[in-house]
């Protein structure tokens, strides 16, 4: 199976390494031609404003949206989650709008508030070590979205979703690609095999 990783900016090499550990073929995607060759797509961590802006200039937003709508499995981490979402609580920025959630960017604070912690994720038998870096959380979820994990708002605002799934779309606030725990990447590949 060919798993594309959007390679406009961010930690796409870490995702390609995860894909290789799972014995799948990884492909860097920077153009619509490259996008057309892949069976699934990963949108990496990075700066969501930079990735969104480059995707818009190089005409990738509509083609990715079309592929996702016609069933291509997609997995977004951190900036990838923001790019997949239908909106943010902040100023407008380019987004795919395929995942029915509203995200809050930098929800936990600045880099000094970034953290790692054990996180229970529905469907996984043991916790994941989750690395949250200037991470977003989900402020509002649509009806078709399953919440697979959440974390407590340090400010007392209740539990916020950080891992969600909607049909063949998977998204996390944190970076499984940094910890060599490939269980969520395996989930993406299973979704692609079913498709």
């Amino acid at each position, binding site marked *: 199976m060919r798993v594309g990783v959007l390679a*406009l900016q961010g930690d796409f090499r870490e995702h390609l390494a995860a894909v290789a550990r799972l014995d799948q073929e990884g492909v860097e995607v920077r153009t619509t031609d490259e996008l057309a060759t892949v069976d699934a797509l990963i949108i990496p961590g990075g700066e969501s404003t930079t990735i969104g*802006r*480059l995707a818009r200039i190089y005409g990738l937003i509509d083609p990715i949206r079309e592929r996702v709508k016609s069933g291509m499995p997609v997995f977004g981490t951190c900036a990838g989650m923001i790019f997949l979402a239908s909106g943010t609580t902040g100023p407008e920025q380019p987004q795919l709008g395929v995942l029915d959630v509203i995200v809050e960017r930098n929800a936990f604070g600045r880099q000094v508030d970034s953290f790692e*912690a054990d996180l229970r994720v529905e469907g996984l038998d043991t916790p994941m070590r989750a690395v949250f870096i200037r991470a977003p959380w989900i402020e509002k979820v649509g009806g078709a979205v399953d919440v697979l994990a959440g974390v407590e708002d340090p400010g007392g605002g209740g539990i916020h979703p950080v891992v969600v799934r909607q049909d063949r779309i998977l998204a996390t606030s944190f970076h499984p690609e940094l910890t060599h725990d490939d269980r969520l990447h395996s989930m993406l590949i299973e979704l692609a095999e079913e498709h």
Partner: protein
Amino acid sequence: MENTTERGTDRVKRGLAEMLKGGVIMDVVNAEQAKIAEEAGAVSVMALERVPADIRAEGGVARMADPGKVQEIIDAVSIPVMAKARIGHFVEARVLESLGVDYIDESEVLTPVDEFHVDKRAFTVPFVNGAKDLGEALRRIGEGAAMIRTKGEPGTGNVVEAVRHMRMMNGQIRWLTTLDPEELMNAAKELRAPIDLVREVADTGKLPVVNFAAGGIATPSDAALMMQLGCDGIFVGSGIFKSGDPAVRARAIVEATTYYQDAAKIAEVSSGLGEAMVGINIDTIPAEERMQDRGN
């Protein structure tokens, strides 16, 4: 969630630099420039009082920026904000950390205050340091740096020194990977670097942290050249806001950093950019004014 939460770990500090890869970090001196940089697609901005070209021209002691200015920049953008502290000035570093700066550049562009660098392991905020070669990079990582950049020769618009530093780093890494385990202690002695880090580089064939290019990058082609030489991303100092049309040049450098292997795209984004900053030839700079020799 159980109480397994940790802040300021190596993974968390190095992780932010991983997210900046393939991106451009731009020097800015006020909120207005920061917004132009963010709008152009910068992954981060570097707050400082004067860009290196002005520091070079005006002389005098160069210090951390006014905290009020740094705060204005933090409030103006949603991308991470870095700021420069003087080499060895751990109080400037603490001040910047308390403001919520996301990365501190312990920078040779400012005037050093000590022959020793800051003990960066004692901080929650991550640090980036400059290096001319592998030994210098590993000494800084040993002190706790979570990201490395070439030093280049800042404020010159001349990329030759950044190229030299990158080639030196790559060559020394390749050399380490060819050595037998018995030879590594001697290599550590030659490099004046911690043996554990020398062993790690010999095993993996790469630095344990992200390595960006910095110092003299002025054009989209300069950025693409550094990416092709194996850098993870680009710092642009004076090159943007000392050029004729900063917004257009900033966008072009961002696009050339992503499509660094595509010469036709680089040609396209490089056309009609207006004037680049005026460059300086390195051999016309007296040795004592070369910033790259500060803080070895």
